[in-house]
C-alpha cells in the first residue's frame, strides 16, 4: 500500500526519531551541563512527535491513524516547555529551575494530551477532521480546530517566542566570538518557525505533510553541534552577566582561548580604549597591561594574587582573583577575572611604615645626640667656670656662644624627642595638684630679663575667680606657656606681651598670650600647628628651630583636653588663646 513518497517520509520521520534518541544519549553524558535537562525534554518531545507521526503515516488503518495522531500530542505538548526552559538556562536565568514552576508549565501540556486522547468524545481539539483522500499522503486532515486547540496554540507559541527572543538576545552579545555557533543557533531558531508556517499556510513540498517534526529535529541537531562542537554550555551561563555588572570591582570573563566574553563598567575603565566593544577580542588587545602581569597569572586557571601595574603613568595595585568557570575539561574552561584596586590600602600602608620609620629615626637621633651635647655643654661651662684657668674677655664670649648654641640645639633635640613620643603615643601626662600662681611667677621670672633686653613690656594679669591651685600636668602647662611666650617675644620688635589668665567657670581656665608683633597671615594660620612648619621663614637660623614648637603645644593642649585658638593680623600682632580644664581627674594616656 505504501507509495514511494510515503516510504520516504516515514524514513525521514524515523531518522528524526532515531537522531533524537542519540541526542538525548549524547547530552546525557554531560548531565551537569546547564541547560542539558530542558534540552533533553525538548528533544524527547521532538522524537515522540516524529515517531508517532511516522506511525500515523505508515499505519494502514484509519482508526489507528487517528490514535497515532492523538498520541503525537504527548511529544508536541512538551516541546514549547522544553524550549522555553532551555532558553532560560542558556541565558543564565535561574528563576525557572524551581520544580513547582516546572510542574505549573506542564499543566497545559498534560491537559492537552488528555483532551487529544478523548477528542472523539468532545471535539475540543479537532472539531472536524477526516483522512486525506487524495495526494500521496494518507494522513489526518483537520478541517476545523476545537476551542482547546486554539488555547494550546497560543500557549505554545508564547513559550516558543519567549524562548527564542531570549536566546537571540543573549547570543547577540557574543556573536563576534562565536560566529560559527551563532549561525547554527540562528538556523535552529528559524527552522521550526518556517516549517510550522508552511504547514499552517498550506505551502508544503508534499501536500498535507507537516515538516515541523523534521525541522525541529534539524534544530536539535544544530543545537547539539553547538553544544558539543563549541562547548556552548560550558561558556554561556558561566556567570550571570547581571552579577558581573553589579560587582563593585573590575570584572571580566574570558573563554578558554582568552577571548573576552563579558566586561563590567569598572573593568571597561581599565581598557586601552574604554569606549570600544571588547567582546570577542583577545584579552591583551583589550587590556594591554595584561602582558605586564607575572607569567604565573597568564597561565593560572585559579589564583588570588596582588600585582602592581602602571596605568596611564601611575602605579596602581590590584588584587587579581581568577576563578575557573564551567565544568568542562581544563582546556575548555572560561575564567572570571576580578580585579580589586588596593592602591589606596597599599599607599596607606606605605605611608604608615614611613611615618613609623620617621618616628623611630627621630627617637634614635634625639637619644644619640644627648651624650655629645652633654659633653659640649659641660666642657664649655667648665671653661666658663675656670676649671682650665682664667679666660680673657673674648674667650669668655666665645665660650658663651658655644653654651648658647648647645642649649639651642638641646631644645631642638628635646622637641624632636617629644614629637616622636607624641607620634608613637608613648606620651603620658603626669597629673598633680600644684599652685598655678607659682608656675606663672616662675614663667614671668624666666622671661622678664629677655623682654627687658628687647625693650618689650611683659605683663601678667590674673583675673578674680582663677583658682589658686589646679590639677593638671605642671611641666606640660609650663612648656605650653613658655613656648607661646617665647614665640611672642621672638616675633615682637616693639610694644608688649600681655598674659591674661581668666576663668569663665570653675571648670575651665583660659590663658591669653597677646603680642604686638609681626602677626601671622590668614593663609598661614591654619598651617602653624603642623609639625615641621615654620611660622616665619625669615626668622634667623638661631631662632628658627625645627618648627615643632606650636605643633607640640597643640598636641599637649589636646592631651590635656583643652583647645587652642589663634587670632592674628599682619603688622598688628597675634593672640593665642588656650583653654584647659582646671582639674584633670585621671592620668590620661595617649
Amino acid at each position, binding site marked *: 500500500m505504501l507509495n514511494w513518497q510515503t516510504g520516504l517520509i516515514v524514513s525521514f520521520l524515523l531518522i528524526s526519531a532515531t537522531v533524537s534518541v542519540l541526542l538525548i544519549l549524547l547530552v546525557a553524558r554531560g548531565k551537569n551541563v546547564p541547560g542539558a535537562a530542558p534540552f533533553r525534554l525538548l528533544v524527547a518531545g521532538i522524537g515522540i512527535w516524529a515517531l508517532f507521526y511516522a506511525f500515523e503515516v505508515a499505519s494502514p488503518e484509519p482508526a489507528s491513524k487517528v490514535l497515532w495522531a492523538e498520541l503525537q500530542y504527548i511529544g508536541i505538548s512538551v516541546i514549547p516547555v522544553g524550549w522555553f526552559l532551555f532558553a532560560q538556562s542558556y541565558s543564565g536565568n535561574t528563576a525557572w529551575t524551581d520544580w513547582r514552576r516546572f510542574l505549573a508549565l506542564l499543566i497545559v501540556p498534560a491537559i492537552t494530551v488528555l483532551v487529544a486522547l478523548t477528542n472523539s468524545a468532545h471535539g475540543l481539539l479537532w472539531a472536524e477532521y477526516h483522512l486525506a483522500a487524495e495526494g500521496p499522503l494518507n494522513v489526518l486532515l483537520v478541517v476545523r480546530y476545537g476551542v482547546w486547540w486554539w488555547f494550546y496554540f497560543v500557549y505554545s507559541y508564547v513559550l516558543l517566542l519567549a524562548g527564542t527572543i531570549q536566546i537571540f538576545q543573549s547570543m547577540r552579545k557574543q556573536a563576534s566570538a562565536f560566529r560559527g555557533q551563532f549561525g547554527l543557533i540562528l538556523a535552529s531558531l528559524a527552522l521550526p518557525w518556517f516549517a510550522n508556517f508552511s504547514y499552517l499556510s498550506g505551502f508544503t513540498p508534499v501536500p498535507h505533510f507537516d515538516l515541523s517534526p523534521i525541522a525541529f529535529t534539524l534544530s536539535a541537531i544544530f543545537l547539539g553541534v553547538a553544544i558539543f562542537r563549541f562547548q556552548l554550555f560550558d561558556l554561556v551561563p558561566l556567570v550571570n552577566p547581571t552579577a558581573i555588572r553589579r560587582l563593585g570591582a573590575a570584572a571580566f570573563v574570558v573563554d578558554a582561548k582568552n577571548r573576552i566574553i563579558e566586561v563590567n563598567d569598572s573593568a571597561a575603565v581599565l581598557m586601552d580604549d574604554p569606549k570600544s566593544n571588547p567582546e570577542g577580542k583577545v584579552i591583551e588587545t583589550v587590556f594591554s597591561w595584561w602582558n605586564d602581569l607575572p607569567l604565573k597569572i597568564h597561565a593560572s586557571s585559579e589564583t588570588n594574587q596582588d600585582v602592581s601595574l602602571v596605568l596611564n603613568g601611575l602605579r596602581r595595585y590590584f588584587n587579581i582573583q581568577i576563578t575557573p568557570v564551567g565544568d568542562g575539561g581544563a582546556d575548555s574552561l572560561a575564567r572570571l577575572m576580578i580585579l580589586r584596586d588596593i592602591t589606596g590600602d597599599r599607599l596607606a600602608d606605605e605611608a604608615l611604615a614611613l611615618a613609623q620609620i620617621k618616628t623611630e629615626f627621630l627617637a634614635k637621633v634625639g*637619644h644619640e645626640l*644627648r*651624650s655629645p651635647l*652633654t659633653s659640649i655643654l*659641660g*666642657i664649655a661651662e*667648665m671653661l666658663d*667656670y675656670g676649671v682650665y684657668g682664667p679666660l680673657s674677655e673674648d674667650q669668655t664670649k666665645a665660650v658663651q656662644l658655644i*653654651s648658647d648654641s648647645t642649649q639651642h640645639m638641646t631644645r631642638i633635640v628635646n622637641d624632636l624627642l617629644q614629637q616622636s613620643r607624641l607620634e608613637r603615643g608613648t606620651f603620658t601626662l603626669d597629673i598633680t595638684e600644684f599652685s598655678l600662681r607659682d608656675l606663672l611667677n616662675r614663667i614671668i621670672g624666666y622671661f622678664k630679663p629677655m623682654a627687658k633686653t628687647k625693650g618689650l613690656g611683659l605683663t601678667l594679669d590674673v583675673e578674680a575667680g582663677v583658682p589658686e591651685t589646679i590639677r593638671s600636668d605642671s611641666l606640660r602647662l609650663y612648656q605650653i606657656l613658655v613656648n607661646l611666650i617665647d614665640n611672642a617675644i621672638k616675633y615682637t620688635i616693639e610694644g608688649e606681651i600681655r598674659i591674661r589668665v581668666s576663668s569663665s567657670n570653675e571648670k575651665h581656665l583660659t590663658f591669653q598670650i597677646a603680642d604686638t608683633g609681626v602677626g601671622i597671615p590668614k593663609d598661614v594660620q591654619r598651617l602653624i600647628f603642623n609639625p615641621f612648619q615654620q611660622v616665619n621663614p625669615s626668622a634667623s637660623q638661631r631662632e628658627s628651630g625645627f618648627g615643632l614648637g606650636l605643633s607640640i603645644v597643640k598636641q599637649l593642649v589636646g592631651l590635656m583636653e583643652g583647645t587652642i585658638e589663634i587670632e592674628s593680623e599682619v603688622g598688628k600682632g597675634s593672640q593665642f588663646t588656650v583653654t584647659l580644664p582646671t582639674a584633670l581627674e585621671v592620668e590620661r594616656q595617649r
Partner: protein
Amino acid sequence: MSELPLALIIEDDEVITEIFSIAVKEAGFEVIVVRDGIQALKTLGAETPDLVLLDLHLPGVPGINVLREIRKDPRLAHTRVLIVSADTTQSEFMRIHADRILIKPIGFYAVYETALQMREEISR
C-alpha cells in the same frame, strides 16, 4: 680630706665622667669613678658613698638594677641617688627611689649646682 662626703660617679662616657667628677668635686665631694654596673656593685659593697651619681645606660648591669641594690642595702640607707639619664621616660620605681633626676643633655653648672644642694642636705 677624709671629712669630705663621698660621691660615687657611675658613668660609661669618658668625657661626661670627667665633667661630672669635676663638678661634684667642686661641690665639695670626694669622688670615686666607675665605668660599668658590675664595678659599681663591687664598689658599693666596699664603700658607703653619701651620693651616687648614676647613669641608667650602663654596660654590664643596668643602672636601674644598681638603684635597686642600693635601696635594698640597709648599710646604704643614707645614700642619696642622683640619676643622670638620656631617657625622658621615667619609671615609677625611679621616681620614688631616686632623690633627683637630671635629663641629658646637661651642663657642668646643672650638675655642680645640684651636687651643691645635695651636699647641703647631707650636712644638715
